């Protein structure tokens, strides 16, 4: 049983991982066809995994309702809206528009429910980031000052009004100071590139190392417990 529960899954990971890698490094017609087929499997499995996520959500909220836990009425809203979306989608064959470019009921669901809810959820963050700027953004240390000063320069330079004011100052000083485009350009295309590239290389090394550990079976967290 240990073979079926532990060793076979690890072997599958190794087999699939190595096959995909070999296909990349040994390009020929056969490897191209194999990798194409495996990628198609991955596309389908990713879509199914996402549906699995939706199913888990229904199960979790279903339990909330059945056991009448605190806030179960909100779970009813979650399940009700999932079912409404699925029902309308199936009814309209997954189309948001008719042939005459008019909204279907599923399109109505998308444009008048999904769009405002999704867009507002992210728009809310504008208020909290402003509040954070006021309450937590303090130049307590030299490094914090560096962060704060950069943020102010970027905020000033990205606003057309800031760039315009700086241009007035630039002309008033007889063109002896750098332009705002020069300052923000230098910051973004030199200093930020330097910092972010360091992070990028570090993160990539981490991704490569972790992926290798997964393929050779050292990283097994994704299999869950031993049972």
């Amino acid at each position: 049983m240990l073979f079926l529960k532990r060793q076979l899954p690890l072997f599958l990971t190794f087999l699939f991982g190595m096959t995909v890698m070999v296909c990349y490094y040994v390009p020929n017609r056969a490897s191209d066809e194999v990798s194409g087929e495996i990628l198609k499997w991955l596309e389908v499995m990713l879509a199914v995994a996402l549906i699995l996520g939706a199913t888990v959500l229904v199960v979790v909220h279903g339990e909330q309702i059945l056991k009448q836990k605190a806030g179960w009425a909100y779970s009813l809203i979650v399940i009700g809206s999932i079912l409404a979306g699925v029902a309308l989608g199936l009814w309209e064959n997954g189309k948001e528009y008719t042939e005459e470019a008019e909204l279907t009921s599923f399109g109505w669901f998308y444009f008048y429910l999904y769009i405002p809810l999704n867009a507002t959820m992210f728009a809310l963050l504008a208020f909290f980031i402003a509040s954070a700027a006021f309450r937590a953004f303090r130049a307590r240390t030299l490094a914090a000052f560096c962060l704060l000063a950069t943020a102010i320069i970027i905020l000033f330079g990205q606003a057309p009004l800031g760039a315009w004011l700086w241009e007035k100052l630039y002309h008033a000083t007889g063109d002896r100071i750098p332009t705002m485009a020069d300052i923000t350009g230098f910051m973004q295309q030199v200093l930020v590139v330097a910092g972010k590239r360091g992070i990028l290389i570090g993160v990539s090394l981490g991704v490569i190392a972790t992926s290798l550990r997964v393929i050779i079976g050292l990283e097994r967290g994704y299999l869950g417990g031993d049972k």
Partner: protein
Amino acid sequence: MEPPPLSDLIGVWVSVACTLFLLSFLYRDNPLYKVGENLFVGVSMGYYAIRYYYDTIHPKLTMELWNGTDRWMIVPAIMTVLLFMRFIKPLAWTSRYAYAALMGIVSGLAIPRFVTSNLMTPMSATVKPLLTVSGDSTVPMYPAIIILIGVVTVLTYFFYSIEHKGPVKWLATAGIYFLMVSFGTSFGLTVMGRVSLLIGRCDDLIMYAGGRYFYATPILLAGTALVLLLWDRHDSRKQAAKA
């Protein structure tokens, strides 16, 4: 201006209500916000499930198997069944095969491509301008030197295998300043991004405030405020009674 068709008009009112329900969180956490929040989760999931099915699963799995055009699609079909086995406790362990295949393919896909695009190319772009004495390099020499110093110092800061003291400490400290500039820029740009999204919502609310949409925004704004006020009073009384 002509009023929109009834279905669109109802849609606009629903859309404004949803927006205001979520914005009501700015006052404090309240039932209207919770309704909006849960509606958001459900509506998104319902919509996504249909998209996953109609745009990928149906054409690439169901149809291929049905028409017999690709018999190898039986492999992801089996994996699909195994993925759902996690809901049947005695057979839950079989879903490991599907996860194992997923992880193997994703990892195998990532390794060579990350090595090329996220490791070799950025490293070459960091060093190459310094080695180009003449030629087509459009990057002047001094930014290239700063970028190289930045990359080395940031990597030193994240390198914990050696103790940060002496020259290593100096390098790591320089790395912190490069990181601070990066994070400061990210913060400034994040503010810009979030405010842009707010502009989008405000733009819609203003558009729907007019007579064409029967003053959806002001009427629903007043309604939301009234409900909040009543709920606030009710909640304070409840808290007082508890105390």
